[in-house]
């Protein structure tokens, strides 16, 4: 909990600093925009957190965003397939990709980095091939579907423009509501279900988990399936939000944003440690940074450098605090043990002279 508080404090700090420099940061339009992006990228990060918690990694999520987003737009608009069927198909396809990653990692014992790096290449290649590099989109229609990405609640419940001013300003964007729902489901899964505990256990010490009778292979596969399914869902939402999916670029580098969100959110790349709320806040920090760079007029060419620096400082500070905490605990223990006064030195039996 202290960790979450620390991450939240970092978020508040960044927001405060930005506001102090430029008050326009806190206008409703800007804030709801950040929330929408936090929702979209947060779904990716939440999924990514699971393979990382098992001690692995998923580098394929960006390409899954591109492939699934393109397929969704293609089938819905070009092929006029029923929307529900396409959505189910897209999610099922993502699930399957995660299943394959998991099987390759556990049964073939390939390294997660290698498996998902290949996924990154393969799905990008397939997306470009199937779409023949033609940009996909939903056109001007499908407003109902686009509501998932652009809609806001509760203002949308009022007929056009009739919502009170305050509500109209501060209604929550749909992607943010979706991440709240996804987050609650995954939080219950991680913190309350036996599976969550198994994943955290095997992330810490796979052998010990196996010796305790946990089906570690199955839990690892499930983790990769969560990751790819979240990526697929995010892919659909991104395609709806942007309304253009360039097969060669859509979702490029998103796996790195996803990982960054996790890392800032307190998920250890060593595995076995992670928290859903932390990941969402971590993603928000990255999004706020991007926004701040824009608002504060920092050269956009510098944005990667800024984001990288802030993550480095944040994660570094976390490690320093952890080390200091461990040292303090040892010191306390020492003080407690020494408190009783020092024992007189033991008496060494004197030797009979051996000459």
């Amino acid at each position, binding site marked *: 909990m202290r960790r979450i508080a620390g991450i939240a404090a970092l978020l508040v700090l960044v927001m405060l600093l930005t506001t102090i420099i430029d008050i326009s940061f806190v206008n409703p339009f800007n804030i709801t925009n950040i929330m929408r992006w936090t929702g979209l990228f947060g779904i990716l990060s939440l999924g990514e957190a699971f393979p990382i918690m098992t001690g692995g990694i998923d580098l394929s999520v960006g390409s899954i965003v591109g492939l699934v987003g393109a397929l969704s737009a293609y089938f819905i608009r070009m092929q006029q397939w029923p929307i529900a069927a396409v959505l189910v198909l897209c999610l099922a396809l993502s699930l399957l990709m995660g299943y394959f990653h998991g099987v390759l990692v556990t049964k073939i014992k390939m390294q997660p980095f290698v498996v998902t790096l290949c996924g990154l290449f393969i799905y990008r290649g397939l997306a470009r091939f199937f779409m023949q590099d033609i940009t996909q989109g939903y056109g001007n229609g499908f407003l109902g579907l686009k509501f998932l990405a652009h809609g806001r609640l509760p203002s949308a419940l009022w007929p056009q423009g009739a919502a009170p001013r305050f509500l109209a300003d501060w209604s929550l964007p749909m992607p943010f509501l979706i991440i709240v729902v996804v987050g609650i489901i995954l939080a219950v899964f991680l913190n309350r279900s036996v599976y969550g505990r198994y994943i*955290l*256990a095997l992330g810490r010490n796979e052998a*010990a988990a196996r*010796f*305790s009778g946990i089906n570690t292979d199955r839990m690892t596969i499930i983790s990769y399936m969560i990751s790819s399914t979240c990526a697929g869902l995010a892919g659909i939402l991104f395609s709806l939000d942007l309304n253009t999916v360039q097969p060669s670029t859509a979702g490029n580098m998103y796996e790195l944003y996803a990982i960054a969100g996790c890392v800032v959110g307190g998920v250890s790349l060593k595995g076995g440690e992670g928290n859903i709320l932390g990941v969402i806040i971590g993603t928000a920090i990255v999004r706020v940074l991007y926004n701040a760079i824009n608002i504060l007029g920092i050269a956009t060419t510098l944005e990667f450098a800024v984001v990288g620096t802030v993550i480095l400082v944040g994660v570094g500070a976390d490690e320093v605090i952890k080390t200091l905490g461990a040292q303090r605990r*040892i010191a306390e223990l020492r003080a407690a043990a020494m408190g009783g006064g020092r024992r007189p030195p033991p008496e060494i039996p004197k030797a009979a*002279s*051996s000459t």
Partner: protein
Amino acid sequence: MPEQVPSDINQSRPHDAAGQPCILQMRGITKFFPGVKALDSVDLDLHRAEILAVIGENGAGKSTLMKILGGIYRPDAGSLFLDGQEVTIDSVNAATHRKIALVHQELHLSDNLDVAANIFLGREPRAGNFLRLIDRKRLYAETERVLSRIDTNISPRALVRDLTIGGQQMVEVAKALSIDARILIMDEPTSSLSSAEVERLFKVMKDLKTQGVSIIYVSHRLGEVKEVADRVLVLRDGRLTGCLQLEEISRERMVKLMVGRDIEKFYRREQGTVGEPVFEVRDFVVPEHPHERVSFSVHAGEILVLAGLVGAGRTELVHALFGITHPLGGQILLQGRPIRIECPQDAIRQGIILVPEDRKLHGLIVEMAVEPNITLAGLEQLQKLKLIRFDQAHALAEEMVKMLDIRLRTVLQPAESLSGGNQQKVVLGKWLSLKPKVMLMDEPTRGIDVVAKEEIYRLMEQMASRGVAILVVSSEMQEVLGIADRILVMHEGRFNGELGRTHFSEEAVVTLATGER
């Protein structure tokens, strides 16, 4: 009189209580680890050209003391004097600089490199030209020189992985000598050597002594200590309990100082009542020993001990029985019914559990709290719709803590903050909460203090009296003789003999374990 005092001896050198000059003095060395005081104000004197044995039970603090001297740990209190000068040794490099070398319990060699490369790793002689490449000629010459000091036929060009364990140990010794060590620390160097290799090592140690090297020899094998040591220092639970001079060294005195009581008072199991066979194994073949078939059975209420040397194949056998590895053949019967065990889940479902040898690697998830560790294997009984019933999980953990008398503040504290004995009890709690029929226990008291050991023995006895069949792998002689109803001795993957209660003796076990009959 073993002392060979050289002519250049510094007369102002400090002397110990007996008036002998010391090259090393450690005073009041104290060291804490999370949850335990590993060393409590320990003093040590080392003379020139002597072999000082440091003995003690597992967990007595021997290795910790040596690691402090070797610069791996820093003491929390106490001071070190070399030739009367106070020094700080805060890194392995600092120790090397002071000509102190530590040969570890585990070998630390790169087995893909040759002997010379290992001995001079990081200190390779370089060519004088600007490229500073490794001067191979000098490297091998130097290696020859070092190896000649220990009189071995190992070639400097041999790959380390092609050497026997004993040969690799010699490379470690040579590596220590290559820094011109004055003080050579050997931490249980014989634990994985054959008896012939042990003899060779002792000869080398005695040779080095005449060359003026002081050796600290850490062991808990009393017979070997008696053979080589000039003096013996005894540790128990992190404290110094005594120091024996050459003429005082006897098995009885060492044991008394080590365990703090007479050997007769060591734990002895009461004769239990043994029932029907519960766990039968027929023609079992483990992948590590494909040509050996083993068959045995454990009865209800019986404690069967698998004795043998390290590497005899006992851990491999219990791992295969528990479904960690897959046997090449054989059959397992539980209460007369054949069962299949493909993975640990199968074993657990049948009521068969394994307390693994390596607590930190296989037994516990040390960073996790005590409660999730205890409930990890039985979580399926503590859930509804796959959601954990936290109240029940907590209650079960508390119950086990009470039953096993695990000393802790709260079940939510991380397992790693407990002492070794209490950690082991957490492992036991995890398995006992499942109410097993068959318990496989691999070195169940390794690295824990004597009090906790005895508590664990009583617990095993209790489980046996309830009709549980218990198979214990143990390498500690007193434990083997103390807790067993029956002893099976393994040697190189096969059973070399069985001992009933009336035939229990240390000699019998050792004879069978070394392959004789």
